């Protein structure tokens, strides 16, 4: 599978390409966006980004854990965790580009195999994605 990692630099580049700002200011705006989201979460708010997903904070109670190395019991203190739920749009974008099609695309280029970017209207999958009914 494609093993590339995208970082702030590429997001900054995307912003730079989109509007007429300097690269420097584009990078600062990426940072500002992440900071706004973080601050809202720290205030306890849920952050909903349409067609991307939502970030929410969940309170976890205290429980007994175990040090896996020593087997010793240690209390895990109550704490807050961040949960991300991808929207259906993001889920279907991630699932539709099959890794196989991506390999064919960059690889030998089999004759007659045209990798379409929107390859999966044929596999909407009954019961998958649409109903949000997992758990």
């Amino acid at each position: 599978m494609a093993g590339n990692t995208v970082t702030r630099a590429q997001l900054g580049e995307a912003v730079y390409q989109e509007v007429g700002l300097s690269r420097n200011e584009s990078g600062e705006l990426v940072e500002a966006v992440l900071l706004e989201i973080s601050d809202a979460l720290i205030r306890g708010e849920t952050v909903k980004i349409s067609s991307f997903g939502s970030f929410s904070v969940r309170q976890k109670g205290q429980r007994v854990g175990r040090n896996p190395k020593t087997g010793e019991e240690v209390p895990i203190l109550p704490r807050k965790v961040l949960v991300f739920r991808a929207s259906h749009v993001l889920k279907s974008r991630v699932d539709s580009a099959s890794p196989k099609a991506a390999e064919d695309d960059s690889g030998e280029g089999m004759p007659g195999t045209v990798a379409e970017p929107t390859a999966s209207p044929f596999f909407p999958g009954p019961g998958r994605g649409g109903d949000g009914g997992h758990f």
Partner: protein
Amino acid sequence: MTKSELILHLVEKNPHLYHRDVERIVTAIFDEITAALSRGDRVELRGFGAFSVKQRDARIGRNPRTGEAVSVAAKRVPFFKTGKLLRERLNGR
């Protein structure tokens, strides 16, 4: 906070930018993350968290209402792991 509220906050803090442009900037960022994940790439934002794609094998699921067995196809799902700094900040450290 919704995406439009996020945009409003950023507009307030960046009065030299048009609302329209801030909207395009925010959209560009999330589009770029989406595009990376759909290529199977990982998006690592130090201090905030990392988005990645996990492979789920095909399995026999069950319709919880009817108890009927249904085959669930293998799929790829987006996954987010909170960064260390944000995790600590959430817990007031």
